[in-house]
């Protein structure tokens, strides 16, 4: 056992311990804001775990979403929760009315928790130590995929229909949010000069990084999802700083971008279905640029959808026509 392995082992053990502790604290702490901050820290450490498991693609996605967007989403929700519920008296009454949970109802879930861990742990440990899974299939087909990053190949080529349906899932989530959230006005223009200058630098950099991740995704970790999440973060930052958007852009151009990903996907799938005889079976020579086209459309849609999800309602310009 070399010193370097010991250091890495200690790193892993501390990481595992911290994650467990954080997860427990997120569940057990009384204060909701504290739970959210702890959850953001949890997402941060998850990104480190992905690095240790040699999954840089996931680490990128988690860095953008787990450590950034989810935290922003939760905080905005907490803010609105406090805004719609300014009557703590009612809450006190309901919590006082509810009798203290009996001892069995506290202990039983804990016992169940331990049993589940033991059962699942046994199942995990009885799995074979070496299993190739789908690695041979992926290796065999990589040359025909049109890209060099195996994860991108799986996402956009081998299992392209998964990604197609996921785009639809995102759109559905946004439609549900819009039908529940109603019409909301954009927040008033920000007057803080520091925040404004931060946005002026950060937003272009975010867009640039998003383009970079999209482009590099063909042969290194990166791709539409990571690029889209970074783009979404740029949108969130703009929304937070009171970005002014014309009503006419919020109407049709926004909706066009939102459906662009699914739309391009479906059109290409349909064309390929009739010309190649299979859903999303790319001709080998064209696979590369078809994937790039799909990813570009998907990036725009994912970014716009995530920012719109953060906004939480049908956006309306604050200037009435």
């Amino acid at each position, binding site marked *: 056992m070399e010193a370097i392995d010991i*250091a890495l082992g200690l790193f892993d053990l501390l990481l595992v311990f911290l994650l467990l502790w954080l997860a427990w604290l997120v569940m057990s702490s009384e204060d909701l804001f504290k739970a959210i901050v702890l959850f953001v820290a949890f997402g941060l450490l998850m990104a480190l775990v992905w690095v240790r498991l040699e999954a*840089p693609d996931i680490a990128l996605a988690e860095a953008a979403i787990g450590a*950034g967007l989810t935290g922003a989403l939760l905080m905005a929700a907490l803010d609105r929760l406090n805004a719609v519920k300014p009557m703590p008296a009612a809450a006190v009454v309901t919590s006082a009315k509810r009798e203290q949970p009996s001892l069995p109802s506290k202990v039983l879930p804990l016992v169940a928790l331990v049993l589940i861990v033991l059962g699942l742990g046994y199942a995990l440990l009885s799995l074979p130590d070496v299993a190739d899974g789908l690695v041979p299939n992926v290796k065999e087909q990589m040359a025909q995929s049109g890209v060099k990053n195996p994860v991108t190949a799986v996402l956009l080529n081998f299992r392209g229909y998964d990604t197609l349906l996921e785009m639809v899932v995102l759109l559905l989530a946004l439609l549900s949010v819009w039908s529940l959230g109603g019409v909301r006005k954009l927040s008033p223009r920000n007057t803080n000069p520091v925040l404004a200058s931060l946005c002026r630098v950060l937003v272009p950099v975010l867009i640039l990084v998003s383009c970079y991740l999209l482009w590099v995704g063909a042969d290194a970790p990166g791709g539409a999802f990571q690029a889209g999440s970074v783009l979404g973060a740029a949108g969130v930052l703009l929304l937070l700083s009171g970005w002014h958007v014309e009503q006419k852009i919020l109407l049709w151009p926004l909706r066009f971008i939102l459906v662009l990903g699914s739309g391009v996907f479906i059109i290409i799938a349909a064309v390929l279905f009739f010309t190649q005889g299979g859903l999303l079976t790319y001709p080998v020579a064209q696979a590369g640029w078809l994937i790039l086209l799909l990813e570009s459309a998907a990036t725009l849609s994912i970014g716009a959808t995530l920012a719109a999800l953060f906004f939480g309602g049908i956006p309306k310009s604050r200037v009435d026509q």
Partner: protein
Amino acid sequence: MQLLYITLALFLLVNLAAGMWRVLRGPGVADRMLAAQLFGTTAVAILLLLAEAAGSNALRDAALVFALLAAVTAVAFVKRAWSMQEERDVD
């Protein structure tokens, strides 16, 4: 050099674990958020060290994304979650 990178990454993780205390203790919401900011900077450093140890360029991209996104959470905190009747959660 490898050993130094990994040891320093471990050291920074210990640092981060110590910062947890401030998140738990508070007392104000801003103190908790501040500690989360520390986690962001520390995680960037850990990622860069691991990237150098593994010779992986992709991890530097992850650190770049981290550096960018930590700011977004913090701005969301200042603009949204930080209500004006602050300093209520003293525990």
